[in-house]
């Protein structure tokens, strides 16, 4: 269905396609496959900060142990960005998107750590493109 132009500020028309950048869940660059959550993609300090943030922002609804196992395992093969995207759009329930970008990424680092994914020398980046380039790999995957 078509329509005519409106005078509305920030309002577009009928059938307008969502204009925000589409973020693929998995990295499109073949080289990105070289990096996975088994490659030391966060630091231990970052994970500790993430634990603190998790305790502050998440445990009202998500037990500490909830971060271990299926909640991460089922993202196997997807990029960290998909996880980051869901978190920042919907969490915490009391004020979604209210944490700093750094805090969300720290929480991801904590969740990687408690699932046995090793820390490394370099902190997990807050950049969307970097997050897209890291793939969830479960540590006991053959």
């Amino acid at each position, binding site marked *: 269905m078509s329509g005519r132009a409106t005078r*509305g500020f920030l309002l577009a028309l009928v059938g307008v396609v*969502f204009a925000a950048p589409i*973020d693929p869940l998995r990295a499109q660059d073949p080289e990105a496959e070289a990096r996975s959550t088994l490659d030391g993609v966060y630091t231990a300090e970052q994970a500790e900060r993430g634990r603190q943030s998790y305790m502050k922002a998440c*445990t009202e*609804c998500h037990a500490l142990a909830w971060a271990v196992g299926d909640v991460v395992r*089922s993202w196997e093969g997807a990029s960290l960005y998909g996880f980051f995207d869901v978190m920042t*759009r919907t969490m915490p329930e*009391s*004020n979604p998107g209210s944490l700093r970008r750094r805090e969300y990424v720290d929480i991801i680092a904590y969740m990687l750590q408690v699932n046995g994914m090793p820390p490394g020398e370099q902190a997990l980046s807050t950049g969307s493109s970097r997050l897209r380039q890291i793939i969830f790999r479960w540590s006991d995957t053959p």
Partner: protein
Amino acid sequence: MTEFPRVARLSTAAATLVLVAGLQACEAPSGTAQGDGGSGDAAQTAPAMASSEAAGGARTGTEDGEWRYWGGDEGSSRYSPLDQIDGDNAMDLEIAWRWWGANYGPQVDYIYRGTPIKVGDRLYNVAGSRRAVVSIDPETGETLWMWRMRDNPRWAASTRQNYGKGVAYGEVDGRGRILVITPGYYMAALDAETGRPIESFGEDGIVDLHRGLGDYPFDPEMGVYESGDITSSSPPIIVGDVIVVGNSHDRGYYPEKKENIPGHVRGYDLRTGEQKWIFHVLPQPGEFGHDTWENDAWTYTGNISAWAPLSADSELGIVYIPTDTPTNDYFGGFRPGDNLYGTSLIALNADTGERVWHFQMVHHDVWNMDNPDAPHLVDITVDGEEIPAVAAVTKQGFTYVFNRATGEPVWPIEELPVPQSDVPTEQSSPTQPHPTKPAPFEMQGMQEDHLIDFTPDLRAQAIEIASQYRWGPVFTPPSLWEDEDGTNGAFVVPGANGGANIPGGAAVDPETGMLYVASQRGHSVISLIPGDQRSEVVGGEDSNMEYVSRGPGGIRGPQGLPLLKPPYGSITAIDLNTGEHAWQIPNGDTPASITEHPALQGLDIPRTGKNAHANILVTRTLLFYGEGRGQEPLLHVVDKATGEELYTIDLPATTNTAPMSYMHGGRQYIILSVAGAGEPAQLVALALPEGY
């Protein structure tokens, strides 16, 4: 020229006849009615009913282009009879104004759960985690006044700071007043014109709601009941000269204590703020329902809050109270019995607080199936019989429809056997009520056919992921983490965030009797752990309960995809005259996380909708819906008769809660409460261009 049709209603005399017939029905229980043994009890309330009817007064709210209640009218129809905006012109809607509500607390708010009311030439709403009350010019969006309670320790301790849904409006001696319940559980009465507290109400305009609940342990230093956190996020409702006040509690997923304060419902004098009555949602000795608590748990435990907005029929003099689960959400071994009035719909005489009727949707609730939406009042005709009805939509995907005067189910509600708990000390109810009509509006229970089905591989991976948990029908009880049968808990489908819930809820069209329900396809995995492992598993302290859950969360399906097959969210139109579904549509397009997913490339994916509760509004000819929290910033315009999607309109941010509509200066407005990542909380007013 816009018309304002009046809702066709039963006359007072007709309502009385229906009431009498209903009481007779109570005396001869069919096995489907609740309140067994309650015929005499119900009969005791009849004189009070008659008295209320004598007071008269039609259900009101949306006449003359107003929106006087959170749900539009006192029956929470969330329906506007306005028709200036229709299917031929909605494409030309533009933003008339925006109002910014992000800085009414110490944090910038990226969520906005408040729906304005419109009375006369003003809008009133709450804003921010302090739950400030604001008066806004409906034509320009200008802030006219703002009131907020002074900082207090109870605000800081409140678990519902940022959940304010709105305010209530009443009149005393012809002058308007705005009622709000604060996060610290105070009630304030403000002059509607000036925003100043009304000194003759309570103490300088404030009533302390942490008084008057009963003889429970009290902390005088903080001025709160010791055992549990009680507050409210919803506005009260005013019926005649009585303010009826509900409440909400802290989350009950894994509480540290089985001790809690019960969420008793209270009535207050609109003029003075004096407490007039209290209805014990946890019945005390000698009160109806006390015997549904089979040991002494009634002396110390609680919750059973009425946290959703309330509805009322001022002509019948009845207020309708939807209630929550008793403590805790997923384990009730310490509270054997059906646990009235947990997870019930209660009809109270608004003037006296006496019970008129009730229905318990879930006996001995261990699924967190609390009633999450205001009851929706509508007059329907079923097989030629005019019925004043109330419909409750629920997290379990059922719609329960009753004669609102008598409590008699419009269609039989059958008590059917359900799977039984094997958790030590738990005594689950052998049966649960199952409405025979309308059909469920959302997927219920877990079975293989419910899992993601885009490809056989994904189905197989989903089965593998799901196989470590117990599957079963809708009332499959929670089970133990690391159970000896090798499972780690049980699926609850729709689950904590599925089915109907407050952000979407439902709307009902009084002209057609059509109910529109926004639902989300969801699931929880409920795994119980011993209370003395709480600190290790959950964090914080251990619990003095035998068992608590690991939380209400679900699990993802394979490769970060949803575990269940689409649609991920729906809007369902249900004709309450027949109980039949008229249509069902997905609540939006297929998200990028699906269309762009590598495992799904080249596949023919259906329109999936979104994993959220659509925020719906119904007008004379249209249904509008926003996509809800975390989804795309779009307003969808739908032909309500057919479910056909007509247009989508871009918004600055996604909608967060129920929209509303009003007429002002000859122009119809639609107000959307929006916010999202990077877009702070704001109201967006849509209207056709001036002079259109």
